[in-house]
């Protein structure tokens, strides 16, 4: 019995949509496919892939402090994009700008062009609440809701927003937990508190909770940094599988992790994107000497 939420056909269809008419042609400067081929910082000869999110000139910060100083990059559909860089360079700020979580911090600001599903997410027609249902987020520290059971945690996104119809609840719980590779461990104790699980299980519960909302993109901010190596390995396996149905962006401090589970890697330094390229290439033959210095451990 295949309980996947997104059957292969659905995924294909989705990719098809993005490949054909993902973005409005009339919009300002570039046509979507031109954008994809536009050489950014780095490689030019990789095969063209549909772009899920296209960031141009993103500036963001807190109060008078500018953290992101004009970042431009594309995030490809059904790929894992890793973001690496020294502490404080703006990795978290960057991914939080993508689903407009950034603005929840008082004094935060962001401006620029973040194209997703045919709109600039910062245009006034985009509702950040609806955007976050399409671009989900997994946080550094596992944060299941402490008052809720495992089942309630998985369904939280739907119950919180009043979108759960009773008949589908069990199906969603099972399929989301299966996709998050947690089902076998919890299927007999769905009504126990979410907090009763181990850290790694809690993090997979949080991933299941994100999946249950049926997003297109999952952002992960150092999802393994609070976990032990075994739990980390399980999450990495999971990320590799998630790629089939979702576009994944993962911030990590761990370069082996980026190397193991991402397709492309972006290197950030002091609020700027230094380069983004195929992961195997960035670790073997980075274009920029700063990237090389960072990867070889000269700083950071």
């Amino acid at each position, binding site marked *: 019995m295949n309980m996947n939420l997104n059957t292969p056909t659905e995924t294909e269809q989705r990719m098809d949509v993005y490949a054909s008419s993902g973005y409005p042609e009339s919009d300002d400067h570039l046509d979507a496919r031109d954008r994809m081929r536009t050489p950014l910082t780095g490689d030019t000869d990789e095969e063209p892939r549909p772009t899920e999110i296209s960031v141009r000139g993103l500036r963001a910060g807190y109060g008078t402090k500018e953290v992101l100083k004009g970042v431009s990059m594309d995030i490809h559909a059904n790929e894992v994009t890793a973001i690496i860089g020294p502490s404080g360079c703006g990795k978290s700020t960057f991914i939080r700008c993508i689903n*407009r979580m950034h603005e929840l911090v008082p004094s935060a600001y962001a401006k620029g062009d973040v194209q997703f599903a045919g709109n600039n997410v910062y245009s006034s027609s985009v509702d950040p*609440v609806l955007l976050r249902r399409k671009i989900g987020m997994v946080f550094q*520290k596992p944060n299941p*809701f*402490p*008052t809720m059971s495992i089942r309630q945690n998985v369904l939280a*996104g739907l119950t919180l927003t009043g979108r759960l119809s009773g008949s589908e609840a069990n199906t969603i719980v099972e399929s989301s937990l299966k996709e998050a590779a947690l089902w076998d461990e919890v299927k007999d104790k769905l009504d126990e508190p979410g907090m009763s699980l181990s850290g790694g299980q809690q993090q997979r519960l949080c991933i299941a909770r994100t999946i249950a909302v049926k997003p297109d993109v999952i952002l992960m901010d150092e999802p393994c940094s609070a976990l032990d190596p075994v739990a980390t390995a399980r999450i990495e396996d999971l990320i590799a599988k998630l790629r089939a149905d979702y576009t994944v962006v993962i911030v990590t401090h761990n370069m082996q992790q980026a190397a193991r589970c991402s397709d492309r890697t972006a290197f950030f330094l002091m609020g700027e994107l230094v380069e983004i390229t195929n992961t195997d290439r960035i670790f073997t033959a980075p274009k920029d000497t700063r990237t090389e210095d960072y990867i070889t451990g000269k700083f950071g």
Partner: protein
Amino acid sequence: MQEKRSTWRETLFRNACLVAVVIPLGLLALLIGDVVADGIGRLNGQFLSSYPSRFASRAGILPGLVGSIMLVVLTASLAIPIGVGAALYLEEYAGQETVGDSLAARAARVWDRYFATVIEINVANLAGVPSVIYGLLGLQIFVRVVGMGRSLLAGGATLALLVLPVVIIASREAIRTVPRHLREAAYGLGATRWQVSRRIVLPSAAPGILTGAILAISRAIGETAPIIVIGALTYVTFVPNNLSSEFTALPIQIFNWVSRPQEEFAVNAAAGIIVLLVTVFSLNLIAVLLRNRLERRLR
């Protein structure tokens, strides 16, 4: 030598603290003991179920007791929703709007923060205003302008006004203890500000909010000045049966008996005080049990 002196100081400090606890508790016990000794004999079914009378032996506390209980219910049901709403606004909404860069968005942000600051300062100041002033405010606004008359509703509204600042301050403290990462998790799932406030913040903050509200409201039960000012009666021969009914309350009834010259009325007053204390304690007890149940359910 050094060591010895510090243990000596330790002992002194400990004993000083003990004295600081024993003296007020002792005085309180003495006071209560005295009142109980005076009044316990008078406390019977007749006393609890009778109306005031010229004759001390026929007088009873019923209208005051019913009045006070109704006042508490009214005060709580006005002050808690409004106070919690104000606290939620100040903590979750104010100054959090729009990231826009346009002039309008910036102006909205500045206005929002300015407004929140003004409210904040006022709430803190209002908590220190003497209760008799609230009575005058209630007299002017509720009794005269709104035209509620000297009714139970006017009394409840006035007491609600009195406890509102404390309820707001306590609720804000409770709301602030809700961890940020829970809010973030909910926002990340596409919940609106209202959904996050209602389903994540409020349930987690509820026990703390209740504690603050209980303390504030049980103070209000004993308040005499504001309801005297708005004109609660001192001689009521009926039980208030609707919100616009005139009323009396326990502290007023007690005050009235205390001020009579006859010895027998002083006994009535002592019995009345026992009734008031028991009422306050049992309301507190109910509220604490309620809170504990809530806390257990949330854990």
